[in-house]
């Protein structure tokens, strides 16, 4: 029968071998030129895209670099007289008594001594505005740590007020006309005198990393949001990862391929594209209103983010499982492993690097997610550091949003600082994903 087939094909074969159909040398050269031109254009388009991307990244980094200013703050060195009459009026040295004393007053007195010419109400008010309202806390801590200093005079660097800090960092422009400037000329003169006397120091902004939020930017910290985000990630991870992997393993390895599973598959893929604010509304309706979980709590937020991350985990896990060659499954089945054994002993461990990578990227996405948390009420002003996932808490991206929205000058700096911290976390998480993928990846 083959011979018959060849006879039928013969005329067409002649067409293929017919040299008159070949392009001439010029035509061929034109073809080559056009091909080269197209290749050059494609390369150029790619390079342009890359250049724009690199530029955008550079701009982003450049714009958040000023945020490192948030990591340091200015303090004013004053000679504080630890007046026993103010600190310990009863003379019992009772720590509880001493904790309640008006240390702020001690700072003000030191300032008045330093500037005896400022006698009017207005002038003294301006002096008081040099230091932070929380500056006295440091004196209290000193006294409680070492009660013997009561009655003595000590040199203490106290936290400067936010506006003063901004002047010293150059964020408040001195050349602006006085009437439209927050810090008036007289205060600027005082700052300059303090600087001349060497009484202005810079210090590591510990409270930025160690305290919760505050209305006063020089006292506001990220710690509450960090812990809140940590709890959020914990809840999200515990909720979405085991469930997502289990769902993906079932769908990929065990579920019959029929309309129902097709429908589920389409829905899961679509779920990954649902806007996050919608998940927020879902969380509000289900976790807060139906289940009555505490508002603003990481448990409610984490479950909401978990719902959002779930499809990402499912999709990543399924892709990872699908990339494992069927020969591995067959090998296991062929020596009498059950399907569950084949999956648990061979397929899943091999798919782990892919699953982990997808999961970590999903978690990183959840870490940066803001919109759903607004719906859960996590944009509330929360000063306390949460003790458990059931306590009201802030989260990193929400804290950034709150600070960006605050009018005080220094919050702009804190916003950038918090962005640096958040990006740092994201880079660490993505780095971990890359490391795990490299580390666990195997070849077969």
């Amino acid at each position, binding site marked *: 029968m083959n011979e018959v087939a060849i006879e039928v094909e013969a005329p067409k074969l002649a067409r293929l071998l017919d040299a008159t159909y070949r392009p001439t040398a010029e035509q061929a050269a034109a073809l080559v030129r056009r091909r080269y031109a197209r290749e050059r254009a494609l390369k150029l388009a790619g390079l342009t895209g890359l250049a724009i991307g690199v530029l955008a990244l550079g701009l982003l980094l450049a714009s958040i670099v000023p945020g490192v200013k948030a990591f340091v703050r200015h303090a004013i060195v004053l000679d504080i007289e630890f007046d026993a009459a103010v600190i310990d009026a009863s003379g019992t040295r009772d720590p509880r008594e001493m904790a309640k004393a008006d240390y702020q007053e001690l700072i003000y007195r030191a300032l008045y001594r330093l500037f005896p010419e400022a006698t009017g109400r207005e002038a003294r008010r301006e002096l008081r505005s040099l230091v932070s309202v929380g500056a006295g806390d440091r004196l209290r801590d000193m006294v409680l740590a070492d009660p013997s200093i009561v009655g003595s005079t000590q040199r203490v660097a106290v936290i400067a007020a936010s506006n003063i800090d901004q002047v010293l960092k150059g964020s408040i422009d001195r050349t602006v006309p006085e009437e439209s400037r927050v810090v008036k000329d007289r205060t600027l003169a005082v700052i300059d005198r303090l600087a001349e006397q060497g009484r202005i120091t810079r210090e590591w902004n510990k409270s930025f990393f160690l305290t919760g939020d505050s209305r006063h930017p020089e006292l506001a910290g990220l710690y509450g949001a960090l812990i809140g985000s940590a709890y959020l990630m914990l809840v999200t991870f515990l909720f979405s990862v085991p469930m997502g992997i289990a769902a993906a393993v079932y769908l990929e390895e065990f579920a019959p391929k029929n309309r129902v599973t097709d429908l589920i598959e389409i829905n899961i893929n679509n779920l990954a594209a649902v806007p996050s604010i919608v998940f927020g509304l879902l969380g509000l309706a289900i976790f807060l209103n139906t289940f009555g979980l505490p508002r603003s709590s990481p448990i409610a937020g984490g479950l909401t983010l978990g719902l959002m991350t779930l499809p990402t985990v499912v999709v990543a896990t399924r892709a990872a499982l699908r990339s494992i060659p069927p020969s591995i*499954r067959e*090998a296991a089945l062929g*020596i009498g*492993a*059950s*399907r569950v054994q084949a999956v648990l002993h061979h397929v899943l461990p091999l798919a782990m690097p892919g699953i982990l990578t997808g999961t970590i990227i999903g978690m990183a996405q959840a870490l940066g997610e803001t919109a759903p948390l607004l719906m859960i009420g996590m944009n509330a002003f929360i000063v306390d550091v949460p003790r458990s996932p059931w306590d009201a808490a802030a989260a990193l991206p929400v804290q950034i949003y709150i600070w960006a929205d605050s009018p005080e000058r220094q919050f702009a700096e804190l916003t950038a600082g918090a962005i640096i911290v958040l990006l740092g976390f994201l880079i660490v998480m993505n780095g971990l994903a890359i490391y795990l993928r490299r580390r666990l990846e*195997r070849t*077969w």
Partner: protein
Amino acid sequence: MVTTTVPTATATVSSSAPVSVKMSARNVNLWYGTKQALFDVNMDVMKHRVTALIGPSGCGKTTFLRCLNRMNDTIGSCRVEGDIRLDGLNIYDPSIDVVQVRARVGMVFQKPNPFPKSIYENVAYGPRIHGLARSKADLDDIVEASLRGAGLWEEVADRLDQPGTSLSGGQQQRLCIARAIAVSPEVILMDEPCSALDPIATAHIEELIDELRKTFTIVIVTHNMQQAARVSQYTAFFHLGKLIEFGPTEEIFTRPLEQMTQDYITGRFG
């Protein structure tokens, strides 16, 4: 109509030992979805003999091989009818546990597919999940015996902890054979085990097959006529899902009953 010659004790085989039936297939029909891939296959697999399944591509020989340990179960659209018996026990009976069937009827695949684990773990996995080893030392013995049985021990004894995937193709295939025999199966199915190997590795495996048949019963799918003639005592010729002819290898290759068999083994089509 298909004529199926089922040889009995009268068949002339290159071994003088008495021949008994290990597996039997009766009226096996198989469908992938609506497409029928096997038509009324009837044949017997003899104990301690090598049975070769030959035929052109797409003729159903691999499909039939995979029926013998129910590997086709893993394909959702696949439906099998008929009767396949292992020592008289219908392996498609609903009361039969498929995992037990596969422990008794092992399989070696076309492409060597060691697990991406150590050589030791590759062989030890089967005995471990089937609870065959009483102790670590016992498991060590099983691994050594299996690797010796597959003729691989001398080459890998000093590097059992290295990944199985680091071996050469031929070694990997022998590792897969070791892995299969480690669970002490009764029948070993081999699906073109030499198609991915060079001639030297192929010769090695062929010798091994002849050695293994003393302990096991072997069914091998091959595209290589010479290989079928060299290693098998029985040969089944498949064409378009039908078993055209089945008999002792000598007879199939020297005086086949069917013209189609004659044409195929002399290379006139396929």
